[in-house]
């Protein structure tokens, strides 16, 4: 899950610096696109805690993301922004609460049934906002964006600076999310999740109540998806049911698949690539989804470990503890 070699860590740091420098030389359009990619990366990263770390494939993850965005809309009075110090905790708490309820029920099932139950819950949340007037119905609704303010002091930003501030806030939150997940995976709790991914029955026989651990992971993933949803509301100032629907959940899964199931930075790389791919496909053709589909198919078939699995020559991949070939052999055996 975590980069083992020094070279890998250096590359990740360089990538973060590149993202940090991007608004300095990029046009405003690309800064906005970058913000969207960072938000998608947060969504995919939050889902990776379930998919790649615990082995739980959910098709309803966008529900928590969308619910957080709608929470920002619902607590914001018309024509008047609210401080991010209020909107962010509220959105994250709403997403976490929903994840607690959905997780408590859906985690009683496994495998394919879990996939279907999470899909059903996601679509239920979708139709709540799709079929009622709660959030503007099918058309969605505009909202006043959350303000970067502390108490009564608001960060003095011009119209041009605001998207840049949102970009850096998203980048900061993404990095914080990544580092928190690194700490979680190294903790006693994270080791249990890894054990559950490899062999859940054995974990129960060892004495772990795996249901509780999976529920905790589900809630943490929901909270983190809430951070992403909040940033969407702040970025676009608009919410609609598409945020919640299963398409968005499936996109997040595709990002993980593209970037790599076995690493924590995979979903980030996958989300950036996926967003870039969508933009590129739109430039060259009117059949955007067809191009996207073909490229994703190619990546998944040609790179079983995703984009994060390519690139580094053998001497850079050396890990301090385990012999690389032994690890590969063991992984082949588990996945075979």
């Amino acid at each position, binding site marked *: 899950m975590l980069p083992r070699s020094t070279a890998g860590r250096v590359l990740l740091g360089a990538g973060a610096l590149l993202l940090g420098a991007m608004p300095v030389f990029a046009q405003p359009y690309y800064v906005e696109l970058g913000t969207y990619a960072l938000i998608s990366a947060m969504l995919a990263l939050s889902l990776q805690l379930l998919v790649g770390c615990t082995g739980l494939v959910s098709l309803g993850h966008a529900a928590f993301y969308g619910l957080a965005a709608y929470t920002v809309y619902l607590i914001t009075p018309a024509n008047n922004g609210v401080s991010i110090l209020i909107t962010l905790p509220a959105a994250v708490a709403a997403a976490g609460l929903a994840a607690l309820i959905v997780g408590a029920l859906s985690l009683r099932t496994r495998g394919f049934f879990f996939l279907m139950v999470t899909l059903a819950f996601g679509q239920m949340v979708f139709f709540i906002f799709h079929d009622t007037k709660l959030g503007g119905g099918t058309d969605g609704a505009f909202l006043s964006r959350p303000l970067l303010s502390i108490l009564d002091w608001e960060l003095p930003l011009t119209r041009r600076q605001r998207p840049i501030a949102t970009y850096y806030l998203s980048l900061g939150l993404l990095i914080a999310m990544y580092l928190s997940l690194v*700490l*979680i995976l*190294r*903790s*006693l*709790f*994270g*080791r*249990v999740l*890894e*054990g559950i991914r*490899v*062999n859940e*029955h*054995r*974990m*129960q*026989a*060892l*004495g*772990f*109540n*795996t249901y509780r651990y999976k529920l905790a992971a589900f809630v943490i993933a929901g909270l983190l998806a809430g951070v992403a949803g909040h940033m969407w509301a702040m970025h676009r100032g608009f919410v609609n049911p598409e945020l919640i629907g299963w398409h968005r959940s499936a996109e997040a899964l595709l990002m993980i698949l593209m970037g790599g199931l076995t690493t924590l930075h995979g979903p980030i790389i996958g989300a950036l690539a996926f967003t870039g791919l969508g933009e590129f496909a739109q430039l060259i053709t009117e059949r955007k989804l067809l191009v996207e589909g073909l490229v994703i198919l190619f990546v998944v078939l040609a790179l079983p470990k995703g984009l994060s699995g390519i690139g580094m020559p053998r001497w850079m991949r050396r890990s301090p*503890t*385990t012999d690389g070939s*032994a*690890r590969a*052999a*063991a*992984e082949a*055996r*588990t996945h075979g």
Partner: protein
Amino acid sequence: MAEARAASAPVLTTHELTRRFGGLIAVSNVSLSLHQGELHAVIGPNGAGKTTLVNMLSGQIRPTAGRIALEGREVAGEPVWRMTRLGVGRSFQRTNIFPSLSVEENVRLAAQAVCKLRRNPFKPARREADLIEKAHNALQRVGLGGVTTRLAGTLSHGEQRQLEIAMTLAGDPKVLLLDEPLAGMGPEESQRLTSLLKGLAREHAVLLIEHDMDFVFAVADWMTVMAEGAVLAEGTPAAIRANAVVQEAYLGGHA
């Protein structure tokens, strides 16, 4: 069957334990007791219900009827993770480990699962030195002290069986349920396991299922013979060897 039995109070007892699968009665009215310091072997032909019995004792499946008492406490129907935490450890007939994790991590997880101290779950796992030390002790005991950093999936079959036992030991069990620990082991590895088992039986109540009759008669203190889900006979190895019913039904002149 007048032989004297270990005098200590039983650690685990079953009373008329029964499990049906639809119309099939896999285990029928089995009553037995496991004592501290005693190696209790359960033998019987394939399909006699031995593994179903172990699955009920370890909480993998619920009994249809009957009782299980662990140190006087009724535990029938408790989920598997609670049975382990209460002190019933088991090893599996088919090797059941975490192949992509290190040998140390396999055993460390077992120690973490049952640790009584309240711990901060978000503390880095490698700072919990007591769990790592416990894992190393269990690995030393089964003879895997030299391969702790290897990935479990790269061990030989025999070593994986040893790892399986180390994982069970790290869970601090009072009762050890060993389901065919010798399956697929070479003679040298079997030898080492025999002496290990004798040592373990002094500190734990051990229930052993095994098909290798020479091995069973060499290590067992007490035996239960099962056939078609029911107890056919029980007694000391010498008494079982001499029992005419058992001879006819199962041993087939082997003894």
